[in-house]
């Protein structure tokens, strides 16, 4: 097996991550803004206990915020990155190179994973340092945190890639995805207990990975005293692993096929036509 594309893909992913970390605007508006909002919200809610418990609302919010961050980065950011790569011709460039397409796929996966890790680590560290966030103390809960983050990332990243191949461009990607993603955030229990929502909405929420990521992270962050606010009064770790695993498996089956198809469809004429359309829309 030729491992060169994989090695070059990992190198690409690292290089892309370094570029985004060096981009001041991206750093301030993306990473800095997210971490700042996280710290402010955890601080703001940190003084209140969740109803009927001695558990800080800040901790509840932190679990939901981290889950949403993983979800939106894996889904929206990746979709926008891929749409931008198509528009700029990066996909096409790598199509002209032997082994370029697998290297591209590996590279984008690596860069988005690094982005997620950076976001989560910085949020947790800043939360601890600036907002008194208390992280899990026993190893079992850390293990839960790690597998939920890993499986939660795997559940959304392939679908982010699929959306990136289907959406017409990076700007359209943001405008098309924002509303449904925000809607999911509201119904998935990352801001407030999902049991406070009507039952049909709870079923809808449970069909998507965001709910299960949030549940899994709450099971790592929160004591069992908080189970009263969860569906069935349980953390349901098996169901969480099963649902996130099913999303990951489905995504990993579909994404490579669609990515390869999208890459095969790229051509100079398509690139030029797309750019002409953008120019006609006054996007420049």
């Amino acid at each position: 097996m030729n491992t060169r594309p994989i090695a070059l893909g990992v190198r690409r992913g690292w290089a892309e991550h370094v570029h985004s970390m060096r981009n001041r605007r991206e750093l301030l508006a993306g990473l800095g803004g997210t971490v700042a909002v996280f710290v402010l919200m955890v601080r703001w809610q940190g003084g209140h206990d969740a109803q009927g418990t001695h558990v800080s609302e800040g901790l509840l919010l932190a679990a939901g915020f981290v889950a949403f961050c993983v979800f939106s980065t894996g889904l929206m950011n990746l979709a926008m990155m891929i749409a931008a790569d198509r528009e700029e011709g990066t996909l096409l460039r790598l199509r002209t190179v032997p082994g370029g397409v697998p290297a591209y796929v590996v590279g984008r996966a690596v860069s988005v994973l690094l982005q997620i890790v950076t976001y989560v680590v910085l949020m947790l560290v800043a939360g601890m340092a600036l907002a008194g966030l208390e992280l899990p103390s026993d190893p079992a809960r850390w293990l839960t945190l790690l597998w939920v983050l890993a499986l939660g990332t795997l559940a959304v990243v392939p679908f982010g890639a699929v959306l990136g191949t289907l959406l017409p461009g990076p700007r359209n990607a943001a405008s098309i995805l924002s509303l449904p993603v925000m809607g999911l955030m509201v119904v998935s229990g990352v801001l407030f207990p999902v049991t406070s929502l009507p039952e049909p909405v709870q079923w809808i929420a449970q069909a998507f990975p965001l709910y299960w990521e949030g549940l899994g992270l709450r099971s790592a962050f929160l004591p069992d005293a908080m189970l009263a606010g969860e569906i069935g009064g349980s953390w349901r770790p098996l169901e969480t692993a099963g649902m996130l695993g099913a999303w990951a498996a489905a995504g990993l089956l579909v994404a490579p096929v669609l990515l390869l198809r999208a890459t095969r469809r790229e051509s100079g004429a398509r690139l030029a036509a797309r750019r002409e359309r953008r120019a006609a829309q006054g996007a420049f």
Partner: protein
Amino acid sequence: MTEPVIRTRDLRMRYGRTEVLRGVDLEVGAGEVAALLGPNGAGKTTTIEILEGFRRRSSGEARVLGADPGTGGAAWRARLGIVLQDWQDHPRWGVRQLLAHIAAFYDRPRDPDELLAVMGLTAQAGQAVARLSGGQRRRLDVALGIVGRPEVLFLDEPTAGFDPRARREFHDLVGRLAREDGMTILLTTHDLAEAERLADRIAILVRGEVTVSGTPSGLASIVQAPSEVRWLQDGAPRTERTPDPSRLAYELHRRFGGPVPGLEIRRPTLEQSYLNLVGAEPGAAGRDAAAVAERTAA
């Protein structure tokens, strides 16, 4: 007899009801620089993208380096260099960083630093790609296209948007690549002067068909736009267009019984011949075959 490096036979491409290639026959030998010349919408980009393996043809035969571009694998692709019309990729990467990255995909790449020197981009090596000027960006595109030591280089409208100086530098570069590296080059252009200057062989593509092909010097005689014969008849200027100016001159000589006053024969230049050829095609200009393809696909 050795097989041509690039060969098409009756190459056809259809998008719905629109036929953008109508039986293109083309041959490019090893080490030749060939130009596909034609107005917008002639099918140049479609032809070159089929040969690059980016588009599936509707019918006909296409061979590049002995392989069908539609099924060429990674090893075949490694023998090609491709420079497209309109690349703006990897804007945040450094110039040298990107060149070294692409070089790493090949078994025997050129040295990125040497290549940057050849392209006159050493001073920009550490600069972000997005900060390059149009001409510099194009030279980087060529560097990326040849870093894997390709045997065949495809250049699609290589100097579109260049100023005259950048265009001359680019022409020198293509000449060097062909002379010194023995690379087979197929370029598309709608600029006759560029084709004349760069190519050993020119194929004029009009509405999806190669109407004429040959060496630049041979094309004018092949195309044969009518010559213009001028003389003075009773002191008044007369002009006649004819495909056979020698015969008319002879007849005039007989009619006048000696030297013809003010006789002047203007033979068509290659440019006149070309314009004559493509200008006769209604609606050719401004209608891009590839754009038709994209609209149809959409």
